[in-house]
């Protein structure tokens, strides 16, 4: 029992340290718009838009892959809010995005 707990602790510490180092090595600046939009989408990950999950659709809109609205379960006011947000918030490159409703 004690051995098992100690073994898990040591293993967890080793793997955690490895991931911590990897996170430093592979660090990238995130585009905050993607995170915000994915929290505003319904979050069902239904795939009805043709992208892998809600985060996938949020990223497609931000990167310019999707230029029209494809989320069917989203409520109308939430949809207007997201389109408005994208129109008024410039990304790291200073550009805003227009999505056809």
């Amino acid at each position, binding site marked *: 029992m004690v051995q098992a707990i100690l073994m898990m602790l040591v293993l967890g510490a080793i793997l955690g340290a490895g*991931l911590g180092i990897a996170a430093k090595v592979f660090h990238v600046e995130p585009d905050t718009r993607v995170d915000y939009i994915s929290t505003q989408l319904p979050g069902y990950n239904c795939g009805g838009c043709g992208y892998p999950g809600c985060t*996938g659709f949020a990223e497609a809109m931000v990167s310019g892959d999707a230029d029209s609205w494809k989320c069917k379960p989203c409520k109308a006011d939430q949809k207007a809010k997201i389109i408005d947000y994208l129109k008024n918030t410039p990304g790291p490159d200073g550009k805003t995005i227009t999505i056809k409703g």
Partner: protein
Amino acid sequence: MISELIGLLITSVLLNNAILNQFLGLCPFMGVSRKKSSALGMGMAVVFVIVAAGLVTYGLYYLVLVPLHLEYMDLVTFILVIASLVQLTEMFLKKSSPALYKSLGVYLPLITTNCVVLNVCLVNISNGYDFAHMLVYTIGTPLGFALVLYIFSCIRERLDTADVPASFVGNPVALIVAGLMAMAFSGLAGII
């Protein structure tokens, strides 16, 4: 010995295919097969995770768990290793290939719960494979997964332009195609 290993390789890639014969890993199979490029990326990510996880868990089991008589902890430790490796893969892809990272989306962290990965790690132990057999099985299974995922994505790209009855458009017809593929693959059973 060599012919036995080749037999095991063919079995794990084609005859006992992870998706079509064991019905494992169906979530990414349906989820990332819409585009050939995402299917290939997913296949490669799964190959990396399974080979790394297979090697690490095999070593961990025989070098740490068996000497300490903690064999019953295998499931917990294996999941810990797999989750860490998936995290590592995710960070690496985010840095090196943002396009692929984007196209995989939520299915990349979901490799953690991809049952093919855990299945390979557990079968390596429960079948009592030696190192050579473990290596062949660990490489063969994800290759079979990647192969079927890629073939399926090619078919689905064609399905997009095909004249499918309205009520079958999208996932329903894809599931039927998956069933037909499983029937075709079961026909390979006689080759060995």
